[in-house]
């Protein structure tokens, strides 16, 4: 009987130890986490110019679906980005232009520029500027290891990212699920400063193409599914339909260029 008790104790202790090992299996060090984030940033970053054709679909409870197509232009080296809506007809010519810390919105109907913030809902959808732009996760956030888990059939690291002081981001706290095998993020949850969950974003499809200027693969999130956690039932789908890496006109990232499109 005594031996039995002893045996049970050893068994429980062994299970507990195994659980601890499983739970804290290979916790990522700070430098490793930064490396993971930088890896995503580097993969997405384009050395030359970038142009893509994007499809955005917004679903809202009790409303008709909204659909848009846009051209996204990037010149990552200069921190410049532009979204030019092409469809539907009523949206065509409207656009966003990011230069440094400024995000401008242009409406050709009224010929007016408006300064917008990082919290801007792109075209009134649940997407944000960061969903279309280059990535600067390592520069903007401080990571913290939360553990490992399974996301469907994929093994993922779970990181908690907190915005660095003085950095303007759409969401100050982000929970991040990174695929251990590819190093790509598959899921992120964005939180307000109060800790309230604002939206959940899935990236079920990553795509890559060879970039001559980069001399390496350029990765992009081919499909993004965003679910609104405040207005439950609202969701946004972003699909990058095609990518073009040819050089863009030198003056493309200027107000004058975007204005000229509607003249």
């Amino acid at each position, binding site marked *: 009987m005594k031996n039995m008790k002893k045996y049970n104790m050893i068994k429980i202790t062994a299970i507990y130890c195994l659980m601890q090992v499983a739970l804290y299996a290979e916790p990522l060090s700070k430098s490793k986490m930064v490396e993971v984030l930088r890896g995503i940033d580097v993969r997405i970053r384009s050395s030359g110019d970038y*142009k*893509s*054709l994007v*499809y955005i*679909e917004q679903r809202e409870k009790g*409303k*008709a*679906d*909204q*659909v848009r*197509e846009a*051209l996204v232009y990037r010149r990552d080296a200069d921190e410049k980005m532009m979204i030019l809506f092409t*469809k*539907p*007809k*009523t*949206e*065509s*010519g409207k656009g966003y232009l990011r*230069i*440094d810390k*400024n995000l401008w919105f242009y*409406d*050709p*109907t*009224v010929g*007016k*520029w408006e*300064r917008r913030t990082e919290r801007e809902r792109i*075209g*009134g959808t649940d997407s944000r500027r960061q969903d279309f732009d280059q990535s600067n996760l390592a520069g903007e956030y401080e990571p913290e290891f939360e553990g490992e888990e399974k996301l*469907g*059939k*994929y093994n993922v690291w779970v990181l908690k990212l907190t915005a660095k002081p003085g950095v303007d981001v759409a969401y100050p706290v982000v929970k991040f699920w990174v695929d251990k095998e*590819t190093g*790509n993020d*598959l*899921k992120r949850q964005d939180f307000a400063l109060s800790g309230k969950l604002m939206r959940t974003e*899935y*990236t*079920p*499809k*990553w*795509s*890559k*193409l060879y970039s001559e200027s980069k001399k390496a693969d350029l990765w992009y999130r*081919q499909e993004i*599914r965003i*679910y609104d956690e405040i207005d*439950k*039932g609202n*969701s946004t789908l972003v699909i990058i339909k*095609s*990518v*073009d890496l*040819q050089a863009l006109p030198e003056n493309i990232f*200027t*107000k004058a260029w975007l204005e000229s*499109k*509607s003249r």
Partner: protein
Amino acid sequence: MIQFGILAQIAFRNLFSNFLNVVIGGIVFVGTLLFVVGSSMLNSMDSAMSKSIIGSVSGHIQVYSSKSKDELALFGHFNEPDISEIPDFSIIKPALMEIENIKSVIPMGVNGAQVSYGNTLDVVLEKLRKAENKKRRGGHSIELKDQIESYKNHVRQIVSIIQKDFANLSVLSEARSEDSESVIALRKANSADFWKSFDNDPLGHLEFLENKIAFLIPDSDFYSIGYVGTDLDSFKKDFDRMEIVDGQMVPQGQRGLLLSKFVYEHQFKMKSAQRMDDIKEAIENRHSKIAKDTDLKFLIKQNKMQTREIIFQLDPISTNKLIKLLQTLLKSQETELASLLSGFFDVNDENFLERYRFFYSDIAPLVDLYRIRPGDMLTIKAFTKTGYIQSVNIKVYGTFQFKGLEKSGLAGGLSLMDLVSFRDLYGYLTPEKLLETKQLKKATGAKIIDRDKAEEELFGDSGSSIVSTTKQVNIDEKKELGVIQTIDTSINRIYSQSEIDKGVVLNAAIILKDPSKIKETMAKINEVSSKNHLDLKVVNWQKAAGFIGQFVGVAKVILYLVVFIIFIVALVIINNAVMMATLQRTKEIGTMRALGAQRSFVLSMILIETVILGLTFGLFGTIAGSFIVKLLGHYGFPAMNDFLYFFFSGPRLFPTLGAGSVFGAMAIIIIVTVISALYPALVAARVSPLTAMQAEE
């Protein structure tokens, strides 16, 4: 009759014979007074409020789509009501106009939009950019050249102020180091070289100022405006309380906006001017003293601190002019405008009126007191019904108010917009738009995945690979972009009546020839609607106003409830008091019975005594109540807040005494006194002479 006379004499003789009678009388007096004053006030308020609602936006009757999920609430609802569209006003108008009692049908749609301004530097740079674009398109007039130079000087002035601010901040904070990007950019933007080379590449220089400097100022503005999209000419004709205050009426058939004077003064006016106005009103109307009023002290503190609002608006010439003016007024040698303005706004009870006059006579002409002036173009932006953001440029022709409701935020909460612009901003989902969306969705063929099943479907065993390789393609920008469509917002285009009528509206106001026949007309509209399949819901003005319209009804219920409770209490007290008084008079009643008085005589005696007691004191209460109503009718009951201003249809309510209030009070007294005296009277009638005589002294 003779018997009634005798009984009345007995009743009057006993009126003050007993202390209990005085108690009963007191209760009846208070209850009657309250009823007369309260019901007169509420009836007058009801009548005044109906004028406010009918005369400002609702008309006598409102119609809207019966398919709407919510009820129409013109003066707000706890949530934004979901009202379905009436697809074509030109169909319902002629059908309704066939009803005899209908004078006119005015199309409407209530919506909200946003007006946003960049910060002060953004605004000046935008003007400079427009002027430069005009120059590039061939504008060579001297006026344009002067305008560009003036804007450039203004920008330079603002840049130099920001640079000074940054220099001061860098002394206080290490974060703003000399090497910071912004400091370098400011140094460049304030250099002589920068402005010397400006004309060689104006757009490049503008981009630099817009992207490297302008974001350093945090004073951008954002306004929300509620508006009624309507046929402005019909509105002006049928809502005769509406009057233009500034500017002019929108020319017939043209696009345009009339801002509510209330909104104009409270949203678009310079904040420091608003605060000066608020202080003046508090001193003059509420007899407040700056020395004792913490709210006024706070307003003064804000004005002293927020002088940038004025400083940023001034070009170098105006800055120097204002410095000299303030130095003379304040007898100061100070050369910094910010310090001088701060000193100027440091007002007290002695110098306030003088400073107020100076503000409007000397400072105001140098700045734009309002963000927008009649005649200016305003860019307003709304989320359309379909979720897209739509903007229109619209000319502000002027401001308006409803006579008698000048200070009411409720009546003045909505501005007026032409129906064509309203429709542009509303963004009705036409069959063509629906088809375009459907085609785009079909071309992409994206699969919809529910939130709950997302992880399983996207990353589960059945999910497709998460990584793929693609090849770059040549994206033809011209093909994708097509021809950019813009809305024709030309301010000079005149729309015909049929163009205005043809199209979507949300509701329509109906003005009646004879408002007393409102119920019959509503029934007739329902009949016409079902006969012609118009799918209209018909409501009277009270219902259309939303919770505001129900306010007087609720207040009446509360008053009647209070009066009812008072009279129920009175009924119990009167019953007990009469019972006690009757028991005290057992011997008297027995003697009367012994002398031949019938039971019916005794019964009548008690009843008549109580009713006369009630009527007498009720009459006193009615007279006192009527006197109070008369006094209030003469001097007016002041509207102490915005809601009361609307309910009173002006700054004061002048109640009138209605026959209903007087007769109602009397009827209640008779009923209450008869019921409360009935049981004691029956008890008294049963008193036998023998019992009475056997009773001890």
